[in-house]
């Protein structure tokens, strides 16, 4: 019998001020409701428009569990269509990338559709004369998602009419996207390097929470980052610290470092670590880059852009971006206990290649299925997924630095080890889960 479906009170009761019930992580019915409500009422990242540079280019992905195509239409705008033939349901494309030319053609019965999804032609059309096809679902073509927004290249979609508009949903949090994009002397990013895909046997929210969990690196990553520091200590004196060690070492920074970096929360579940400094603050300068930035923006503005070293910005519900690294991680929910993590990297258009090289090294060392840092984290998520089966305690604690005067949907800057951002996410979770129940 359904425990949560149609029972918004039961869903709300899963979230308390300082703890959340385990069913948000392990219950498949809650997961189904997340897909129907949370992932339909909020703005979900689809892709970057540099993935579809030419007219007719498409990129296949999922919004929640809905298969979609992001496509460059003949008028150069980017559309998002459900990837399903309106006739028999056949998936129109299976390749991740391709070019449709002027129209999509279903491989099953050759129905064709313009790149905005509208029905173009049906073979032997006279068979539908006087059948009332015009009024059918099929006549609508490949249904477009109505609510699509391309923000400086980053494309988001909202499946439902309900839920806030794009600006209201993201508000000031877009400053993290702005900073990442402004780091390009041309003010533009391009997807580059290839995507790392890493399968996790855990709930998607564990990954999202981990992005602003600043009390785990020095513990969980002692095995990887700590070992990197120990191995490097044995290097010959005077040896230049390699890029890889610069990337690993800050994970072992002490608690005080993370407390001092600060956390900022925004309304609707967004937030970021690294208000004042971050693990990305002390990378070596890349020759020629600062000069390019000064030429593009002037010295004052260039400095302001590069002095911002935000660590992880969570865009609720399921992505994280790293501005200083030009990285977007997408936590794709597959089941209550299964999540596909995609880690996408970007080239700063007009900047030296060495920046992309560092970005790709970071991604490889931290986010790959072969990454030792990734192994550390996944082990913790999977142990949590297992441990939550314990009936004796059915609650997960998110209490660190809780203040009873804390309110939902506000903007605040606070201690870098707070779990406020996790509470922020769960307050937003409750709101977007129940607004259409």
């Amino acid at each position, binding site marked *: 019998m359904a425990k949560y479906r149609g029972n918004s009170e039961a869903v709300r009761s899963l979230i308390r001020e300082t703890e959340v019930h385990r069913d948000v992580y392990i219950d498949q019915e809650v997961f189904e409701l997340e897909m129907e409500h949370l992932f339909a009422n909020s703005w979900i990242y689809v892709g970057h428009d540099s993935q579809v540079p030419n007219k007719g280019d498409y990129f296949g992905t999922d919004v929640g569990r809905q298969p979609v195509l992001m496509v460059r239409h003949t008028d150069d705008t980017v559309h998002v269509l459900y990837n399903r033939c309106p006739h028999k349901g056949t998936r129109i494309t299976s390749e991740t990338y391709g070019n449709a030319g002027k129209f999509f053609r279903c491989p099953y019965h050759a129905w064709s559709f313009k790149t905005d999804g509208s029905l173009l032609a049906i073979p032997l059309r006279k068979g539908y004369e006087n059948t009332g096809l015009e009024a059918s679902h099929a006549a609508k073509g490949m249904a477009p998602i109505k609510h699509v927004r391309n923000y400086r290249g980053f494309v988001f979609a909202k499946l439902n009419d309900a839920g806030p508009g794009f600006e209201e949903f993201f508000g000031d949090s877009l400053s993290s996207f702005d900073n990442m994009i402004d780091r390009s002397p041309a003010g533009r990013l391009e997807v580059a390097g290839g995507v790392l895909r890493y399968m996790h046997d855990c709930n998607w929210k564990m990954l999202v929470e981990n992005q602003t969990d600043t009390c785990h690196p020095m513990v969980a990553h002692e095995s990887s980052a700590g070992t990197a520091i120990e191995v*490097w200590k044995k290097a010959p004196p005077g040896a230049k610290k390699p890029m890889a060690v610069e990337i690993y070492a800050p994970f072992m920074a002490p608690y005080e470092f993370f407390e001092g970096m600060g956390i900022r929360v925004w309304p609707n579940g967004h937030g970021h670590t690294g208000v004042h400094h971050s693990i990305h603050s002390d990378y070596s300068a890349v020759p020629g880059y600062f000069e390019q930035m000064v030429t593009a923006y002037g010295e004052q503005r260039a400095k302001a852009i590069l002095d911002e070293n935000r660590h992880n910005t969570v865009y609720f519900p399921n992505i994280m971006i790293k501005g200083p690294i030009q990285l977007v991680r997408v936590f794709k929910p597959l089941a209550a206990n299964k999540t596909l993590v995609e880690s996408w990297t970007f080239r700063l258009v007009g900047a030296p290649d060495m920046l992309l090289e560092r970005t790709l090294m970071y991604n490889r060392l931290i986010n*790959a299925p072969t990454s030792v840092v990734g192994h550390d984290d996944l082990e913790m998520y999977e142990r949590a997924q297992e441990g939550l089966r314990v009936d004796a305690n059915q609650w997960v604690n998110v209490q660190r630095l809780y203040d009873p005067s804390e309110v939902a949907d506000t903007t605040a800057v606070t201690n870098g080890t707070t779990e406020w951002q996790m509470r922020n996410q769960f307050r937003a979770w409750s709101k977007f889960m129940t607004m259409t129940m």
Partner: protein
Amino acid sequence: MTAPTNQDLIDFVVHETRLIDQHRFEEWLDLFAEDGRYWMPLEWGQTDPRLTTSLMYEDKLLLKIRVERLKGNRTFSQKPKSRCHHVLQTPQVDKRDEAGNEYVTWTPMHYIETRLDRQDLYAAWATHTLCMIDGKLRIKLKRVDIVNSDAAFGNIQLFM
């Protein structure tokens, strides 16, 4: 300097994977030249390890970090430890350049990694670029192309 025979090259590759399967990782590391690399591309037919992402592209320092980490008391993803198993086809000698001190072998293989109740099977091709240093064969580059390198994988914690 005596050039290695084809059988020497084949024996080297077989021995190299045996060291991995038997968790003799320090001996395994010693098989790499000081500037040797281990490369596991992400893309089919990938040519560039620098501006295209790889699953692994590691010098001896990074490999050493992995080997040390596997032994660590607080390496929780190795409690319990992973085990692995290679099945190799006979390595084929693709290149012998005695003057340039470079030898290349190509070895199709199946690789299994297990931990707890989970067992993952990978099919791959290993390409070894070898050279002679002080009378011994050493690895300049071990390239492992997984057949489905762009698929979504769970943890790969040991070495193919």
